[in-house]
């Protein structure tokens, strides 16, 4: 087995991983960085983010506004000290991206432009047309090439973490091109592997978003926090789940039911006005909009047709020229995938799974409970999203906390040395045998696609926009069963060169464990909060019992053990979460009581 000795190993080369790598390289150019990614960095799923990245920019905005929007948007399940750090450092990171060449959209005077986004009181979303994630990812990737200390392992698949002496000391990776294993020793490891949206059926995520880092950390005893909170994005393409960015609504797009009625006004988001107004109607938060869709469907007010049961996203009034400038990719998706010209026909949309709010437990400096292990981005739960993430906070999270992770990991790496390399080597050999076991099994009977489809369907049934104890229990049982059947997985491909079936097999193992964490965390949370909404007697938020983070611990073959941890409250006491006119009133009441911080 090849051995590579690094100071810091980073798993995942999307926005978070790349930003962290650059931060390590800038913190100390003598530190050797191994950047491991199962795809070429520019394929990472950051690429698909569309709308933008939030940072307080305008003179009429303030850090407190961004803080309040984020904490309220997260239904007070956010770590408030971490949110404070986040909003304070967002703007400088946007400027840093600009200096590195990110093609932010501009105002006529040459300054970066900002656009409105759901749940945000003031316009603060920096954007590069509707390909913000794409541009940020390519900018970071191309900038990373400047730093000779970053050694990339492109198309290397991470199959395990090396934990010795009670700390993380490296990773084991498979070179996809050859099927050979490389042990990457490292004094600190950063996981930046993205979310786990592929556990669901209809989702906006790329095929690579399989919860790898979450499952790896979890298997080594690090808890996964708040995993029951899965974000449904309200405007996705029916059947494929592809995303129509929230910027569609930020730019003035309307949501209409089968009567052409702006139904959001019936769900506490109104009144409907002609002009878009921040935190009203279409600019409400994602959880509320997805829930409103569900209710419309129950009432039979969605549109039935060739695309299934949908509502319309109406962009016609914005005109072709404006749409081509501000939402070119959306235009292209509608035209090419659906045969619809959005300047002339409303676009049918449905909610789809989009984002994993929870993740690997991390403190405000991205450190996990396992020394030497850090995490950043969607795989991580650093605590800013709470029970519902606001659109445009996640791209900002990547660069703000990517930098923190890099700086912290560099500091840690300089304070320790690799202990017991012999034992690590042994561990790597054992991990190699386990990974090969997935492919070398000769008596398997279970077809991978069948297991994957059953998992995705069951997760959609049990952990959808609204949840019931009974269906969640059925999903718990199903996932338990699938984890058993997974042991009997049958793979046809026994080759070594680019054996993608093997990797999909390992990924399915990751997916099933993360799925199990999601559904067990969900069934145990007997309240409704943010994106976790129940209809079986727990319709209200219960701050007495559940103003708590759920923490899922690995127990081997069985179901996860669910524990609860405190939520850090600094300056915003939990209040009524309201939008539209009701939101304005709630804000005024809070202000009068002094419960807010503004």
């Amino acid at each position, binding site marked *: 087995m090849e051995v590579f000795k690094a100071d810091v190993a980073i798993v995942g080369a999307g926005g978070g991983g790349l930003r962290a790598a650059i931060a390590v390289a800038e913190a100390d150019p003598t530190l050797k960085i191994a950047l491991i990614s199962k*795809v070429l960095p520019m394929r990472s799923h950051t690429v698909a983010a569309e709308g933008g990245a939030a940072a307080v920019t305008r003179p009429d905005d303030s850090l407190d506004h961004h803080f309040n929007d984020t904490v309220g948007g997260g239904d007070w399940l956010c770590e408030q000290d971490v949110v404070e750090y986040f909003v304070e450092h967002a703007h400088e990171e946007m400027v840093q991206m600009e200096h*590195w*060449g990110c093609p932010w959209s501009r105002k006529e005077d040459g300054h*970066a432009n900002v656009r409105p986004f759901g749940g945000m009181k003031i316009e603060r979303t920096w954007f590069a047309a509707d390909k913000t994630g794409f541009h940020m990812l390519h900018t970071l990737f191309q900038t990373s090439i400047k730093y000779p200390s970053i050694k990339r392992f492109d198309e290397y698949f991470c199959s395990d973490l090396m934990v010795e002496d009670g700390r993380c000391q490296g990773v084991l990776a498979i070179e996809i091109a050859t099927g050979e294993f490389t042990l990457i020793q490292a004094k600190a490891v950063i996981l930046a592997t993205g979310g786990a949206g592929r556990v669901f059926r209809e989702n906006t995520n790329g095929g690579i978003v399989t919860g790898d880092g979450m499952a790896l950390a979890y298997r080594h005893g690090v808890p996964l926090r708040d995993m029951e909170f899965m974000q449904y994005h309200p405007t996705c393409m029916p059947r494929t789940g592809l995303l129509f960015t929230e910027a569609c609504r930020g730019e003035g797009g309307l949501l209409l039911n089968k009567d052409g009625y702006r139904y959001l006004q019936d769900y506490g988001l109104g009144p409907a006005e002609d002009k878009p107004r921040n935190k009203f109607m279409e600019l409400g938060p994602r959880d509320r909009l997805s829930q409103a869709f569900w209710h419309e469907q129950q009432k039979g007010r969605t549109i039935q047709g060739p695309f299934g049961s949908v509502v319309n996203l109406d962009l016609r009034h914005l005109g072709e020229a404006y749409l081509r400038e501000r939402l070119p990719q959306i235009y292209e998706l509608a035209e090419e995938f659906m045969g619809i010209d959005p300047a002339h026909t409303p676009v049918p949309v449905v909610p789809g799974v989009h984002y994993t709010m929870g993740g690997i437990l991390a403190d405000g400096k991205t450190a996990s409970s396992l020394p030497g292990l850090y995490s950043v981005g969607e795989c991580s739960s650093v605590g800013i999203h709470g029970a519902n993430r606001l659109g445009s906070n996640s791209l900002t999270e990547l660069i703000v906390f990517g930098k923190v992770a890099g700086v912290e990991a560099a500091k840690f790496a300089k304070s320790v040395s690799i202990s017991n390399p012999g034992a690590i080597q042994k561990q790597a050999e054992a991990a190699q045998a386990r990974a090969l076991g997935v492919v070398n099994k000769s008596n398997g009977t279970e077809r991978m696609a069948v297991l994957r489809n059953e998992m995705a369907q069951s997760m959609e049934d049990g952990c959808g926009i609204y949840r019931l104890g009974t269906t969640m229990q059925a999903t718990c049982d199903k996932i338990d069963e699938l984890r058993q059947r997974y042991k009997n997985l049958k793979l046809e491909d026994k*080759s070594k060169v680019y054996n993608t079936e093997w990797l999909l097999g390992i990924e399915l193992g990751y997916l099933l464990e993360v799925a199990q964490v999601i559904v067990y965390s969900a069934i145990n949370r007997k309240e409704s909060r943010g994106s976790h909404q129940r209809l079986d007697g727990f319709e209200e938020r219960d701050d007495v019992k559940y103003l708590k983070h759920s923490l899922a611990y690995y127990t081997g073959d069985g179901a996860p053990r669910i524990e609860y941890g405190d939520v850090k409250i600094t300056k915003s006491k939990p209040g009524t979460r309201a939008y539209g006119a009701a939101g304005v009133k709630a804000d005024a009441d809070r202000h009068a009581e002094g419960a807010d911080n503004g």
Partner: protein
Amino acid sequence: MADTEKIIEIQVLRYRPEQDKEPVLQSFKVPFTDDMSVLQGLQYIKDFLDGTLSFRWSCRMAICGSCGMMVDGKPKLSCKTFLREYYPQGLRVDALAHLPIERDLMVSVEDFVTKLESIKPYIIPKEPRTLEQGEYLQTPQQRDMYEQFSSCINCMLCYAACPQYGLNPSFTGPGILALMHRYNADSRDGGQAERNELGYADEGYWGCTAVGYCSEVCPKGVDPANAINQNKMASAINYFTRFITPGGAEK
């Protein structure tokens, strides 16, 4: 979007280096609906007919650049090419032309990545600026000068469309030269002189004979042929003037 299931024949050029001496065609019958992409057809094959078929894919929405392949001889992103367009005659799928096949529909990407790394694809500031000074000012029109060239998703369709690259793989090639131009044309950048050494070399702009097919197949409207050919004039002027400027010829 009709739900009625039809059957389409997909021929795939297979190459498994551990068992095939050279690529061989294999045919699959795939049930499909009108909204299914070629990529989804291949996924069906992998899921239910032959788990050994290998190809790259991820985002499904034409932005990650993974799933480029030859569909009936044309370089395409398989995620936004639809099976219905090839019905009832069927279709043939090959790995991207002009690039070595690693396995099945997966090509070698090393040459592309090495070239990408070689052209200094990052801002070399014209005027350094601290974070406290805020962003560089750049008008929408200045942004328009490079924006389209920054839209390259590195899918390599243009390499599969470029016979010059196929004939001579040392040619830097359309996508990477477009990326080089993207930085040169950025008002914040001052690194053009450094990059020109590569652009003006034989493997640079002059490796292009203006076939123009690269721009035709580009799924993102980057127009690499334009990025390359608009630099030939400057390169030619540089070539001749260096003989008349003092000390220029030694460069």
